[in-house]
């Protein structure tokens, strides 16, 4: 009885939904959708805005980019909601592959992490190269440190750096923001705290931040990105094509050039074809 009353309403809603979608022309019917799950920092850098059109020009796929945290990206791959992943958390990636969720993993590129902090440098770490001793001093002086605390690639790296420094960060000086890199940089600037950031996000926001680079250049701060084709994905062919493309000379050239015009230096460095 109740259902019968509701049915016409449902019918009307469905009809509206059909009307709403009817107007959208499907220009190229032969194009299939490729879902790329990546991290917010990758998407925020703007690299994909250059890379994806170049890929779409050569292949009959429309890339839909979902920018999420590394954890969520891997989880989406696990659920086969995404066809291909572009992430930067080597340890988690290896776990993902070991669990059989990925068909193939390829190194793509790297950028590097830097430790930034307030110009006043209360912990006195400016100019140090090794991140371990620098972090140990921050902890020792109880200088404010902002952590993303979101299990992202950056956060995972930060954790391993603390571990290497032999410090378990805790206390009022250790701020866990649970937000993306851009927001965490903003909070660090406001609170005059140190933080670990990828260079590209920092460069993109530098003008609006009261933060300066304190520590850089150590091999332990390199940040490699990998592409993973999801095992049993809906669009296996597209995933393969995408992984092949960004590791091809063409894709690698785009990566190497990206950011030079805006920042005067590249944001990412190719790992396959240098």
């Amino acid at each position, binding site marked *: 009885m109740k259902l019968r009353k509701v049915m016409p309403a449902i019918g009307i809603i469905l009809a509206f939904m059909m009307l709403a979608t009817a107007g959208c022309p499907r220009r190229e019917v032969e194009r299939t959708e490729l879902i790329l799950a990546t991290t*917010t920092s990758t998407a925020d850098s703007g690299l994909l805005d250059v890379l994806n059109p170049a890929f779409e020009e050569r292949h009959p796929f429309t890339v839909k980019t979902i920018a*999420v*945290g590394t*954890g*969520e*990206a*891997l*989880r*989406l791959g696990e*659920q086969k909601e995404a066809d291909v992943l572009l992430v930067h958390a080597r340890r988690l990636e290896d776990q993902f592959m070991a669990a059989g969720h990925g068909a193939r993993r390829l190194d793509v590129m790297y950028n590097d992490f830097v430790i930034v902090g307030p110009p006043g440098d209360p912990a006195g770490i400016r100019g140090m190269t090794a991140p371990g001793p620098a972090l140990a001093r921050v902890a020792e002086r109880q200088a404010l440190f902002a952590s993303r*605390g*979101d*299990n*992202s690639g950056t956060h995972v790296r930060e954790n391993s750096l603390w571990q290497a420094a032999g410090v378990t960060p805790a206390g009022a000086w250790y*701020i*866990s*923001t*649970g*937000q*993306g890199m851009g*927001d965490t940089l903003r*909070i660090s*600037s*406001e*609170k005059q705290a140190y933080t670990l950031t990828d260079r590209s996000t920092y460069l993109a926001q530098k003008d609006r931040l*009261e933060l300066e680079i304190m520590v850089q250049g150590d091999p332990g701060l390199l940040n490699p990105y990998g592409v993973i084709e999801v095992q049993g994905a809906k669009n296996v062919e597209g995933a393969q094509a995408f992984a092949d493309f960004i590791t091809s000379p063409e894709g690698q050239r785009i990566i190497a050039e990206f950011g030079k015009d805006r920042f005067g230096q590249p944001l990412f460095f190719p790992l396959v074809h240098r």
Partner: protein
Amino acid sequence: MLIVNSLREAFRLLLAVDREILEIAWLSLRVSGTATVISVLLGMPAGVFLALARFPGKAFIIGLVNTGMGLPPVVVGLTVSLLFWRAGPMGFLGIMYTPAVMVLAQVLIALPIVAGLSLAAIQQLSPGLRLQALSLGASRLQTVFLLVREARLPMLAAIMAGFGGVISEVGSVMMVGGNIKGHTRVLTTAMVLETRMGRFEMALALGILLLAMSFTVNAILTSVQQRGARRWTGG
């Protein structure tokens, strides 16, 4: 199925009663509760005044209030941030990324909702009611009290809408609070974080907790109102 597993896991997490989750929930309640109380204290008299007073520019102000009811939290968050960031005009207060500024942002969201719905609550009363009270010898203030009492159900809905609007919003608390663990992290920002980390079960558990809290607060408000009605009836 993911959803079934997530739900099962969510309930298991809820029953485990994690101390951190309780602290997050308590902060949510404190921030949004305080914001709602302030919005009611300011917005209800404002709404009643707008409904009853006659002055030039009234229609314009009502238009503003009604527009404010649909204010996107992100806009509020951004505006408050620009004001309270260290470089901003109010930066000297140093309350950015504290619960205080979260309350402020949520007041800006809830105030137009409470004021607008209070205004509508009074306006939907029969216009004769005001004259009837006056003609029975009520003073202006007594008349206002009577009208508010007559409109108490929609008034209560105004409070609930205000509270519901802020307890569930994420845009402004994320921006002005910063989602700092143990300090400004509330249920909604925690849900965003857990979702980003791919911990959907936890996010869902927090969502269920949020709903349960909303429901409890509304149930308490409703029962207070019912008791109030009985007291009046008892005369």
